């Protein structure tokens, strides 16, 4: 075994001094950076001050004569500060004021600048330009945004997906297909997150239906997962039979959960036995819990009986989900009250029932206060 060398006090002192110096330098950098940001913000505010009233008049829809809009278009003193201020306001208003702000941006060549910046080397500039195109809510830029779904930066792809969502149904069915494909991982980089894709496709409304039907058959479980979520959210009734198949037998548990919940939204009461079957103890816990939530959506006598059957289950999370689902419908609430009055109910089931009834009482008293 090697002899260990004692660490000298001098060395420790040097390390301590070095650490202190590094901390002081870092603190100095932070302070200088913050002062710089504050100064830039103040300069920007000063440059915009003479234009503030015009900006607000356009943003509030109080520029009937168009004078304020024309002054903003003609201004050459505030430069990019004014463009940024217009973009900021665009995120906050909609309707006619938003259209007027877009017009100001367009006439100040802000839109042309954004289109040029889509090819910038900096991913921050590309993301900012993509966001601006989305804020315009102009479907003529759909192809530009679709191109950004293939950007090398994951952040830019996310901004592009959100921007396409902002276009709404006007983006068209091909945009829906492109967003769904962007969920796939590529070149070892993750795809657009499921939550972002789900939100975008939901905003595309009925235009997403063809892409969703096709996505339910995709090889990629991430794509199937998003497609199932959108099918349920947008109430694509025609997907019901396929969702039932996926809920029962998709090889991916996450997809089964999404399909089960979606089926709860689009299924018919006559399909309820499919979901009740997913409450079986042999099914994965996440699928059983999703089935309980779906039965709460579907409702009906068979659903209530299925939910009551798992109130005493060893999986207490499932039991709570079932009690919550029962509380969603009048028939379910009646069943809960009947069970509370039945002395033969097992103690595990009783705890779920009384817990939910107390919750319902609490909600009712809250409403009473209001």
């Amino acid at each position, binding site marked *: 075994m090697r002899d260990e060398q004692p660490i000298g006090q001098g060395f420790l002192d040097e390390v301590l001094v070095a650490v202190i110096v590094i901390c002081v330098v870092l603190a100095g950098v932070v302070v200088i950076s913050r002062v710089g940001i504050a100064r830039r913000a103040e300069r920007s505010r000063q440059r915009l001050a003479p234009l503030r009233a015009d900006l607000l008049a356009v943003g509030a829809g109080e520029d009937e004569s168009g004078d304020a809009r024309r002054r903003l278009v003609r201004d050459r003193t505030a430069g990019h500060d004014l463009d940024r201020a217009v973009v900021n306001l665009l995120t*906050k208003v909609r309707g006619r004021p938003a259209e007027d702000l877009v017009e100001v941006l367009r006439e100040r060549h802000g839109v042309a600048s954004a289109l040029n910046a889509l090819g910038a080397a900096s991913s921050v500039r590309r993301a900012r330009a993509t966001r601006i195109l989305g804020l315009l809510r102009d479907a003529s830029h759909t192809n530009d945004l679709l191109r950004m779904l293939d950007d090398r930066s994951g952040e830019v792809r996310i901004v592009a997906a959100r921007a396409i969502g902002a276009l709404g149904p006007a983006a068209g069915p091909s945009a829906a297909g492109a967003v769904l494909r962007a969920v796939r991982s590529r070149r070892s980089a993750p795809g657009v997150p499921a939550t972002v894709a789900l939100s975008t496709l939901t905003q595309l409304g009925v235009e997403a239906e063809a892409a969703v039907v096709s996505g339910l058959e995709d090889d990629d479980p991430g794509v199937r997962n998003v497609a199932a979520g959108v099918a349920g959210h947008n109430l694509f009734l025609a997907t019901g039979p396929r969702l039932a198949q996926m809920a029962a037998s998709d090889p991916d548990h996450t997809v089964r959960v999404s399909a089960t919940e979606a089926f709860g939204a689009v299924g018919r009461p006559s399909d309820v036995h499919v979901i009740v079957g997913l409450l079986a103890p042999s099914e994965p816990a996440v699928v059983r819990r999703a089935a309980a939530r779906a039965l709460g959506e579907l409702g009906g006598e068979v659903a209530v009986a299925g939910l009551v059957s798992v109130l005493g289950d060893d999986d207490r999370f499932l039991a709570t989900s079932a009690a919550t689902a029962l509380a969603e419908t009048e028939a379910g609430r009646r069943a809960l009250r009947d069970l509370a009055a039945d002395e033969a109910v097992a103690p595990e089931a009783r705890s779920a029932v009384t817990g939910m009834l107390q919750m319902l009482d609490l909600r009712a008293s809250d409403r009473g206060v209001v």
Partner: protein
Amino acid sequence: MSPTAVQVVVADDDDDIRDLVELKLTQSGYEVRATTNGVEALEDIRRDPPQLAVLDVMMPGLSGIDVLREIRSDESLKNVRVVLLTARSRDTDVDMGFSTGADDYLIKPFSPRELVHRVAALLARSQ
């Protein structure tokens, strides 16, 4: 109903939104008192109860929901109508707003014109 002399408190920590709402409501004839946070808004409302308050939900100090809860638990403020103006658009957020006692709920980005229509309709209904 003429909006003349109708008092409205507007609370939002976003300068743009606060100024836009203040300008739009003022141009429509309301007397607007604007504040930047929930604490000041509640103090203002208690000191001189307005007919209506337009509250942002996410504000420093007291949130719009907190302010609304205080208003609804105070008998002397029972006639104050409240509109929540917020970026929180999920169903659960809307449920929370109405179940706490909001009279209306508007999601950002918002239409200033729609806000004025809703305020006018709300005040007309509460006559």
